[in-house]
């Protein structure tokens, strides 16, 4: 058992939903090295891989499919803020959420579309209201998901561009 493999497994455990590039960057390893060890870890079911929203995310085995999708989305700062606002305020109208979070409506609809698809949020009354599907589990995952600096930068950049172009 190599030290590198241990550190990869530990990192995935500490940061469930971490994606490939970030794992390479955080542990300062060669991409091929990470690929090799992840393959070994998958073979003995110590790690689960999921292709979500165009990226490969890594998880410890105890998360189910719904939780894996939720974690991948909640790593986006704005998605996490939208969900946190809905947990605080209960079912709300999209315009009110956009205002509370301070984002353009196009930013809100981009994030909610994916959150609804993953089953974290649901649309009620023909889309006039948004609500969290499973408040307890979602709140727990919200604590676990922790966006890193590059993810935060991209997220804030899209908020800025959406706001400027709206």
């Amino acid at each position: 058992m190599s030290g590198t493999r241990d550190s990869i497994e530990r990192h995935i455990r500490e940061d469930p939903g971490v994606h490939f590039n970030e794992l390479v960057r955080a542990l300062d390893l060669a991409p091929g090295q990470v690929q090799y060890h992840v393959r070994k870890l998958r073979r003995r079911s110590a790690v689960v891989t999921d292709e979500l929203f165009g990226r490969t995310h890594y998880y410890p085995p105890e998360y189910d499919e719904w939780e894996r999708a939720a974690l991948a989305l909640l790593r986006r700062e704005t998605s996490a803020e939208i969900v946190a606002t809905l947990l605080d305020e209960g079912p709300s109208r999209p315009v009110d959420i956009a205002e509370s979070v301070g984002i353009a409506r196009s930013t809100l609809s981009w994030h909610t579309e994916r959150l609804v698809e993953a089953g974290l949020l649901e649309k009620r009354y023909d889309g006039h209201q948004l609500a969290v599907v499973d408040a307890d589990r979602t709140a727990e995952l919200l604590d676990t998901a922790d966006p890193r600096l590059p993810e935060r930068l991209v997220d804030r950049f899209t908020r800025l561009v959406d706001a400027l172009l709206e």
Partner: protein
Amino acid sequence: MAYTLILGVLLAFGTVSAAGILGVGLAAFIQRRSWPYLLVALALAALFVRAMTGVGYMTGGLSLEAHHLLEHGLDIVMAALVIAAVLSAHTLGDRIGGEIR
């Protein structure tokens, strides 16, 4: 001497920051895959190429004339791309989320 040193430092900072923001712009485009984001990423690519022309001139790869022509040509490209991004945001970019307003 001092001029060369200052210019070198400015070019290094400019090129590294332009590369950084281009990376963010490309990641945002990969996420959104819409026209406005493509145009913004291209404008940032033009900024990066503009910084690189400075490096090209300093290291002797580009003549002063070529450097100036490229630099100010890219100013036009950047302005045009940003204007196109603003215009396309209201025509092409609005492909999502009409239903939840």
